[in-house]
């Protein structure tokens, strides 16, 4: 326990101090900047947290560089954006029936009728209260669960089991994301394949490069993800708007805001918030299942348990509480598989992992939570697990982001109505230009830019063919880890061709993967 408290203390301290011990408030400032950006982005229709994180990452890396000192400011800003966006999306959903983010769609069902009845302020404050409470709850679960899972994984799982776990995660993701799981899994394998370009693990020179020296260092990671996630989405939206000859209708005037939410009303919401946050946390901890599922499940549960289910959909605060507490709770819980296993479960987590892989030498995974005794050795300095200190530093920044969401978020949410007037058909081209510039700047030239464009076309094709992008991106990110694990497991087994089937745990995980695969095939037959 004492060791745990020591590491927590070092983690908190590391956020506010430089390696030399001087006071350093940049991570705090960048977390605040991130929260503000996130809330603004969340309140802008057509934008989402991951969208903003994708564009912010290259800009942040350009500003702060690649050193270990850059990690906290970069991660602080990204975590702030992720959390701020979950709060901001509710404002246009409530006031204008236009969800700022896809997660906020269900909030329109009850939030907007409340606003139409002259209870706009109450609806916005309900959304803010439920959202931030839900987020806080899931962060608490993250702080408890991630170390426990990581320690268990590190003790129980060896190389074959870890390989099987990644395979199972990818199969699970393909099975639950999108309507075409077989093709989703194929997309995941394609993502893995593309990430091998330019790499080598046996010292025989870069592979799969078509003898192009530019590809010898591999494909630029951030540009590739920026292309497949952001640029492809922009292309799809631009095409849809062009085809629809879309003209943004003039937004309606903001409705009468009405009275404030009382403290008694806030207190009476707590049981419903706890229920919604629990559902969001459970759903969020599973890779691939998004906020919409959590919000839908929470809304249905709240409606079934309500004494007045007929009020749902007609402007009851219980509906806003159910959706907002659940969809915000997903964001913290999504980091449970990231921090404990190094496996991202959604797009926001992808950018947190990308930032960690790009900046400094910290890496997520079960090894982070080794509680190595802290020892002072003369002449060598302090011996400890610095990754664990960094992990507690990241937790600290999440707590800071929550504090900013409580305070700044509450103030900002009342002022965000005008953002709905930003026309999407002007904003998306600007985002495209910013994204291409960011790809060029961060990845050192046209290689980054061309990679982003090529991956944008891949993403465009996948989206048009209704194949989920998430397995592709996760496959692209996890391939180097999986290859290292598979090669290690094969070598350790002495060249046994059944090296993944020798342990009961990996056998069970692979059997589950096969079960999911069979389910996918059956699903394709009955669809």
């Amino acid at each position, binding site marked *: 326990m004492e060791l745990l408290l020591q590491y927590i203390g070092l983690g908190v301290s590391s956020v506010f101090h430089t390696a030399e011990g001087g006071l350093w408030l940049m991570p705090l400032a960048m977390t605040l900047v991130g929260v503000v950006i996130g809330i603004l982005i969340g309140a802008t229709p057509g934008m989402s947290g991951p969208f903003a994180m994708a564009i912010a990452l290259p800009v942040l890396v350009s*500003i702060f560089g690649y050193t270990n000192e850059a990690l906290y400011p970069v991660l602080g800003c990204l975590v702030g954006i992720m959390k701020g966006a979950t709060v901001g999306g509710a404002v246009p959903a409530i006031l204008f029936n236009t969800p700022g983010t896809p997660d906020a769609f269900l909030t329109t069902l009850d939030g907007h009728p409340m606003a139409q009845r002259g209870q706009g302020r109450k609806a916005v404050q309900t959304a803010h209260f439920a959202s931030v409470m839900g987020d806080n709850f899931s962060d608490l679960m993250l702080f408890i669960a991630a170390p426990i899972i990581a320690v268990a994984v590190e003790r129980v799982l060896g190389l074959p089991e870890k390989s099987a776990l990644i395979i199972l995660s990818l199969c699970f993701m393909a099975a639950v994301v999108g309507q075409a799981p077989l093709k989703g899994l194929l997309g995941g394998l394609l993502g893995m394949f593309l990430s091998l370009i330019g790499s080598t693990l046996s010292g025989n020179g870069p*592979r799969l490069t078509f003898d192009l020296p530019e590809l010898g260092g591999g494909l630029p990671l951030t540009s590739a993800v920026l292309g497949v996630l952001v640029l492809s989405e922009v292309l799809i939206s631009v095409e849809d708007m062009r085809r629809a000859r879309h003209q943004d209708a003039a937004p309606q005037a903001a409705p009468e805001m009405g009275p404030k939410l009382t403290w008694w009303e806030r207190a009476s919401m707590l049981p419903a918030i706890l229920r919604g946050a629990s559902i969001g946390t459970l759903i969020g901890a599973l890779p691939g299942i998004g906020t919409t599922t959590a919000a839908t499940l929470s809304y249905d549960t709240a409606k079934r348990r309500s004494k007045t289910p007929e009020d749902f959909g007609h402007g009851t605060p219980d509906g806003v509480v159910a959706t907002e507490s659940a969809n915000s709770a997903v964001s913290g819980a999504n980091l449970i598989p990231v921090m404990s296993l190094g496996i991202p479960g959604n797009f926001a987590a992808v950018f947190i992992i990308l930032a960690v892989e790009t900046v400094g030498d910290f890496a997520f995974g079960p090894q982070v939570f080794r509680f190595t005794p802290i020892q002072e050795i003369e002449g060598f300095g302090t011996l400890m697990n610095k990754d664990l200190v960094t992990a507690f530093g990241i937790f600290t920044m999440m707590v800071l982001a929550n504090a900013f969401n409580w305070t700044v978020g509450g103030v900002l949410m009342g002022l965000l109505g005008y953002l709905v007037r930003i026309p999407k058909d002007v904003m998306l*081209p600007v985002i495209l230009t910013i994204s*291409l510039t960011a790809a060029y700047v961060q990845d050192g030239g046209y290689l980054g830019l061309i990679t982003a464009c090529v991956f944008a076309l891949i993403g465009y094709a996948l989206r048009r063919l209704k194949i989920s992008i998430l397995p592709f991106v996760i496959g692209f990110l996890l391939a180097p880890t999986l290859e290292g694990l598979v090669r290690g497991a094969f070598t350790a087994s002495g060249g046994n061709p059944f090296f993944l089937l020798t342990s009961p745990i990996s056998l069970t995980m692979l059997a589950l993967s096969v079960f999911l695969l069979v389910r996918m095939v059956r699903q*394709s037959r009955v669809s």
Partner: protein
Amino acid sequence: MTDASRQTQPAPLRGGRWNLWLSIGVLGFCLLCLTLWFPHDIGSGFLQQNLTGRTVPGDAFFPVLLVGLMALLATLLLLSQLRHTTLRRQASDATPKHTSTGEPVGHIGTDNLAFVLRAIVLTASSLLIMSWTGPALVWLTNAIGLTDYSGYRAASGTFPFNVSGFFVGATLLTCGYIHTTRHRLRPLDVLVALVAAGALVLLFNGLIDNVQLPPNADL
């Protein structure tokens, strides 16, 4: 076939056809990888001997496993679709309303390809203008005697030559896509594009050191 009978036929198997084409395409890609690409572009084989004589995976080990899995999944998709198509044909004779087409899939039509082509041309031409504007400005100022640079490379660290290409190219790119979405371009849209390009110049060239805007990192 009468019009009435045509109307009772199930919808064309457009979605299903895409499943077939995708699976056949993936199988072809796998074959190409295993027979041509991997042998020519991977330095070590599936397995190799290390210095101690132990058998360890080569660089082709993981790619071959991946491609094998892709081929397996593509075969499953193909068989599933073929089976579905057969069942559907049989069912359509008995119950013409049966319109299921296997695993859901979208499609990419000629209009999508035309849009993508337009986007490629628009992006490529903006990038070309981005690359040429700086050198053209240097040539112009040299020609009228304002500067005496040996070329753009010599001027690429000096304002405004270092940002001129990016400013013009980024503005054109933004304007081009705004025109694509709105079917028109208002003066306000051009102003937005100019401000966005200006803000990016200010951020990346003014506030951040050690980064280069396009095309300066590729001179």
